[in-house]
């Protein structure tokens, strides 16, 4: 049918073809499972995207230890000053040298913009974003939390 290219009849036929393609796509969409989440009702079964960034967490292992080395890179990376790290020095028993350890990892959810720069900056993978999103509170001071145990 190449002789019909760019002719009147050819245009009509190709238009019908392309319109039919579009209508096929939407018809398939009409019958697919709908993506709407009926939120409060489906609390038990809802699916939150794994990479959704809802709140910053610092995972701890069974002994209650975290991987943070208090280097402060996340604090520097944060554009909003959301993270404040306080350190204290301890003396190593074997070498006798003093070194910095984490005293408090303070995170202000209220000013976090979930850019993930802190997580990317961390050399040890000590912090991560979790997808627990039900973080609404009535008092702003409750948004400031201590992440390390």
């Amino acid at each position: 049918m190449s002789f019909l290219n760019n002719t009147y009849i050819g245009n009509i036929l190709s238009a019908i073809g392309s319109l039919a393609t579009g209508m096929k796509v939407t018809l398939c969409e009409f019958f697919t499972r709908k993506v709407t989440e009926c939120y409060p009702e489906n609390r038990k079964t809802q699916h939150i995207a794994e990479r959704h960034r809802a709140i910053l967490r610092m995972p701890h292992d069974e002994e209650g230890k975290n991987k943070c080395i208090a280097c402060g890179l996340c604090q520097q990376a944060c554009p909003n000053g959301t993270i404040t790290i306080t350190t204290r020095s301890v003396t190593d028993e074997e070498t006798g040298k003093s070194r910095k350890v984490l005293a408090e990892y303070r995170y202000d959810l209220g000013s976090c913009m979930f850019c993930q720069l802190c997580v990317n900056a961390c050399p040890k993978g000590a912090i991560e974003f979790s997808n627990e999103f039900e973080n609404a509170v009535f008092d702003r001071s409750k948004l400031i939390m201590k992440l390390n145990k």
Partner: protein
Amino acid sequence: MIDFSSINSTIDSYLHSVLPAQVATLVECAIIAVCAIVAYLAFAIVMIFMERKVCAAFQCRLGPTRVGFWGLLQVFADVFKMLIKEIIDIKNSDWALYTLAPFLVIMSSIITFSCLPFDNGLQVLDFNIGVFFIMAASSFGVLGILLAGWSSNNKFAMIGAIRSGGQMISYELSMSLCILTLVVLSGTMQVSEIVEMQRGGWFIIRGHIPAVIAFIIYLIAGNAETNRAPFDLPEAESELTAGFHTEYSGMGFGFFYVAEFMNMFIIAGIASTLFLGGWTPFYIPGLEGFNEAMEWIPGFVWFLGKTLFVVWLLMWVRWTFPRLRIDQVLVLEWKYLVPIGLLNLLIMTVCVVMGWTL
């Protein structure tokens, strides 16, 4: 099949027996007007709800689910919201025309609505030039749109109205050509006769190829007539805020909104009357049991089923294609639909003359 004309004549003779002739006619007119307007509003509610649900399904959503069970009360909530909105007086607008315009639009829509044959005898206006009357009545809605755009004293509204005028007058042509094609096939313009003739087989089957082409062109032109996407240039949100009804608030806007939806219902209703057999059931020649079973389904169910199916087709198109540019709209009409429509009319005439119809 219930014959509503016998019920009508019973009511008619009862009224004439208790009232003088002129008063009886007046009372009948009032009853019919109330029935027609109530039915109009009821279908408007159905249409708006259907639009929301179908649109949602095409976009992979669920649509309204919160107001009432399955969102059934959503439309009532919308109407209530619209009713409590302030009606603004526009400075320097032409007050009389500005107020008149929505009523013209809805009036044309209601008149056309009352021509639809819902069932055997369940039809308000039925006379020998019925189809002709439908075309005339539906086309004066454009007057209301032009007035709305002009009297609002707003450039967006003006451009929207001018576009609407150009577009609707153009598409009226190919719509009329399609209707003419069917008139050639049926040989009558009376709506009830056209439906009655389709007892033997729907016109889209009996007219085969030219009828199918006419059906498709009719749906395209009908979509353009109702100012819906992909032909929603008169109210192109991104360019013209809301086009001709930019300045309307409250129920003024509500009338345009309802009229738009009901025009779609009317377009679908006419399509199902002319092409899909109106209220006549679907028959397969030779299958007696099947035909008898089909006969048990009441006529208005058939009519509404067909009409809502055509509405669904229109919505499918509306939520699939992007909006055309104004020159593309006019090119589509004048360079493609009108010549094809004329050719199609010729083919149909040849088919009818040669007896090639089924």
